[in-house]
């Protein structure tokens, strides 16, 4: 038997919380890759935030060794996949590094949206799927129902569906022999010109960017000069190796193997996920298929509440960027919020994670502006501009048409909530594409949505109208022409740039009215009347008035009263200090946050 016969490259795909990380830990301890004590925590998720949210943000790979009683030693490379909708491309690249996938379905939850979307990706990459029903030990488990749903999706003999409890270990010992039996070994020629797929990367502050690779053809060695196909840059390989829980240096990695490459790459942006590494001196004729430059699809302004924190924010973004090549940012100035950054993200969750990390790990307090998507704005002069912020939208008189990014969405839910979902879909300009029953009680709905309609509060809304039972996943689906307008908010005639948005004309009136009402609630009365206007161009579509403050004086002030009054004012002081000035109007930070809570 050849060397490759004893390698299996696989990943685990599952909906959030269906037990992917627990199973990974279980496999690690079964193969002796880590001790039971080490297995206490879920090893693959190393950031606090990931653990808290139960999601994996950055992929890693782990090499396990397994001795089969019949056939000797095997190398099992587990390639982890990011667990969220925003990272569909990254998931697809991890899948492309494998030959097989364990498809995990929770025995009580059944098939969910991510199960389906990940399955589609895995099938697109020609992976062998091993379906596994997990959590069969739980009181609410219905393994037969989950298995039936999987069977409907995959076909194949029912006995091919394994039943386990990753938590108790039940059935897991049978899993590895099944993987070895069913997943094909990698193929590839160690002598061929080098093609190594980068499926992930991380930044090491001492050694630079570390590329996680699957060698598809040829061999990569220490001392070799490699070239990245995407940018043509050359680097000298310092070290290659395999991954256990730490990096284990080796002299080489050859076709079929999974490991890491360190080559003095200073910038993580040069180790692009999906890119192909080749040998400078004997290059492969072409790159591996499937590489796409990751594009930001959600943009938002981040502004520090304390203006002095601008430098800290910049340093923090620089630090995050080291490990997150998909984060983009450039300085942005707002008349209302001062100096900040326009940031680009893969999707909404990515945005939330970055904001949370900035606030938690770097102790910053931020105001984030309403997220927007990149619009393609076609001008009468034939030019096309990509507009990533309301401020950049050209004069409507120069615009021929605007196109907005679209998504294809899959929503899995119990049938009784179909009506609620259809209503939301209609409100969000969704077009239903397909409806398919997983079983008599669960259904998959497919829609085409404008991305701009789902980038905020959509997910919360979805959860709330389905009592948390709906699951959702999406992928980008081109651009479509749309009647978008820029809606501005004016306070006593002064435009509040941080509150402007690009919105579909049909939703503009509602939005403007709600936002004006909300602002009336949160902006404190001042000594003059304040007019709040929502306007499209010069046309005012909603208006509210905050009447002038007539008096603010404590009636009784003796003895202990003064202390009470002072303490009350001191409590308010911090909030007032953080007020932003728009023209003559002082605007509290809640105003900028409330815009993110607008119902529509």
């Amino acid at each position, binding site marked *: 038997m050849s060397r490759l016969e004893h390698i299996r490259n696989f990943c685990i795909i599952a909906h959030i919380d269906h037990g992917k990380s627990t199973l990974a830990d279980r496999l690690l301890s079964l193969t002796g890759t880590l001790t039971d004590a080490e297995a206490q925590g879920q090893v693959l998720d190393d950031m606090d935030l990931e653990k808290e949210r139960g999601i994996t943000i950055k992929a890693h790979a782990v090499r396990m060794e397994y001795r089969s009683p019949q056939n000797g030693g095997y190398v099992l490379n587990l390639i982890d996949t990011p667990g969220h909708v925003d990272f569909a491309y990254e998931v697809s690249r991890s899948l492309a590094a494998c030959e097989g996938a364990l498809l995990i379905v929770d025995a009580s939850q059944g098939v969910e949206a991510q199960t389906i979307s990940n399955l589609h990706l895995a099938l697109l990459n020609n992976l062998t799927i091993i379906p596994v029903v997990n959590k069969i030990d739980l009181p609410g488990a219905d393994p037969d129902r989950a298995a039936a749903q999987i069977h409907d999706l995959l076909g194949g003999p029912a006995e091919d569906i394994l039943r386990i409890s990753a938590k108790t270990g039940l059935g897991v010992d049978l899993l590895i022999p099944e993987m070895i039996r069913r997943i094909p070994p990698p193929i590839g020629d160690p002598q061929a010109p080098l093609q190594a797929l980068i499926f992930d990367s991380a930044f090491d502050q001492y050694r630079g960017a570390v590329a996680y690779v699957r060698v598809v053809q040829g061999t990569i060695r220490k001392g070799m000069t490699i070239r990245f196909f995407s940018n043509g840059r050359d680097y000298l390989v310092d070290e290659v190796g395999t991954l256990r829980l730490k990096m284990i240096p080796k002299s080489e990695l050859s076709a079929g193997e999974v490991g890491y490459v360190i080559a003095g790459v200073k910038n993580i942006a040069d180790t692009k996920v999906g890119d192909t590494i080749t040998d400078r001196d004997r290059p492969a004729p072409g790159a591996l298929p499937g590489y796409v430059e990751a594009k930001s699809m959600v943009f938002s302004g981040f502004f520090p509440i304390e203006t002095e924190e601008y430098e800290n924010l910049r340093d923090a973004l620089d630090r995050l960027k080291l490990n997150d090549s998909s984060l983009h940012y450039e300085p942005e100035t707002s008349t209302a919020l001062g100096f900040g950054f326009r940031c680009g993200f893969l999707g909404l969750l990515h945005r939330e994670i970055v904001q949370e990390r900035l606030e938690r790990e770097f102790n910053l307090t931020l105001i984030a502006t309403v997220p927007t998507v990149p619009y393609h704005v076609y001008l009468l002069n034939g030019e096309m501009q990509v507009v990533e912020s309301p401020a950049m939208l050209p004069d409507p008189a120069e615009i021929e048409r605007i196109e907005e990014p679209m998504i294809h969405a899959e929503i899995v839910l119990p049938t009784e909530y179909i009506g609620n979902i259809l209503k939301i879909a209609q409100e969000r300009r969704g077009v239903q594409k397909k409806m398919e029953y997983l079983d008599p009680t669960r259904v998959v709905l497919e829609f085409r949505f404008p991305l701009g309609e789902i980038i905020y509060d959509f997910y919360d809304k979805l959860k709330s109208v389905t009592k948390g039972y709906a699951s959702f996943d999406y992928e980008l689906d081109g651009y479509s022409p749309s009647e978008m307008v820029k809606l501005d908010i004016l306070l006593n005639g002064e435009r509040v740039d941080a509150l402007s948005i690009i919105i579909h004309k049909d939703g503009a009136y509602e939005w403007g009215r709600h936002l004006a009402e909300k602002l009336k609630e949160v902006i404190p009365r001042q000594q003059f009347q304040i007019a709040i206007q929502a306007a499209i161009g010069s046309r005012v579509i909603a208006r509210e008035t905050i009447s002038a403050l007539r008096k603010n004086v404590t009636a009784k002030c003796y*003895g202990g009263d003064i202390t009470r009054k002072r303490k009350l004012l001191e409590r308010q002081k911090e909030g007032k200090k953080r007020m932003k000035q728009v023209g003559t109007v002082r605007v509290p930070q809640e105003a900028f946050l409330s815009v993110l809570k607008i119902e529509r």
Partner: protein
Amino acid sequence: MSRAAQSANGGAHAPIGLYLHFPFCSARCHYCAFYFVVGRTELRAEYVERLVQEMRRGARDPQYAGRAVHSIYFGGGTPSLLEPGQVRRVIEEARMLFPAKADLEISLESNPDGVETTHLAALRSAGVNRLTIGWQSLRDAHLRALTRTHSAADNLRAYACARDAGFDNVAVDLIFGIPGQTASGWLDELREVAALAPQHVSAYELTFEEGTKLTRRLQEGKVKPPDEGVRAEMFEATDEILGSAGIQRYEISNFARVGFECRHNLEGWRGGDLLGLGASGASHVGNARWTNIAEVDEYMRRIREGRDTVGEIERLDDATWAAEDLYLGLRTVQGIAAESRLQSVGEPARSRLVSSIERAIGQGFLDREHERVFFTRRGRLFADLVFEDLLTGTS
């Protein structure tokens, strides 16, 4: 104590005010947020003893020892529920413990219900020389809205009793902004008050204090005060009506004939030191402020056991202390010599406080004459904004 020497009112050797809190009431008023207990008549005699005991302690406190007293104030609660003998005992004790100024002002707050001339006369002979009567309103409907237990007729009768008892310094307390009250109705009340020619009038806008029943009813939408514009109108018109009767505003909520300003309170607004005794009594020396615990049984127990009664204590930094003095001083019509008060404040706080005052002058809230800064007529309505801005300048 060197710091106290910088206070607006002459510092560590200047006369002090003596405040005695008597937290007993015969009924609960729904708007009141002060600490009080209803009934508990059996406690009152002992309470007076504990008050005297605490006063002796205060007299031994180096912060107060040997200092003259300019005023004694019986506040509450309802101190008119005290027996004249008890009042006499407290006053005599105070006069023994502290050197009294010849024109010592001794005020006592009273409620109109059940007041008798003989009782008031006895209080007067016990030493009380200034009687305040908690009228609150001259309209029965408003008194009911405030859940007061007396009528407008009781108010007038109590006033007559005070005069009959020989009081030549009578103050009445009024409230405006009561749910159901109109601006013209308030002006009529004021005219009736002016016609009776009291020496002193306190006119407070009704405050919806946190935790009161009235505030709960406001939040539930069951009561609604007059609009803010109407209340501003009421506030401003009070000046005119009382002023034309010779009762001049001398503080945000206080009006008096010349020479009849309440010295106890006036000294307080000037930053003078104060010894506050009794449950929830608040004291003030220089930059230190402290308050006794409120609960009456616990207060008495601690005094009995010789323990400390302080609930909260705070020592202000120079800037906050100055901001507080400025605000209090500005509450009086005379205002305050701001620059000299700020001399002891270090930079950068001093500059911030100065620019805060300049800002208020620029906004038309404050005006200046020689070294004194004071509220304009309009600025008085926004006094708390000015205070807030001053406090923002302290850190």
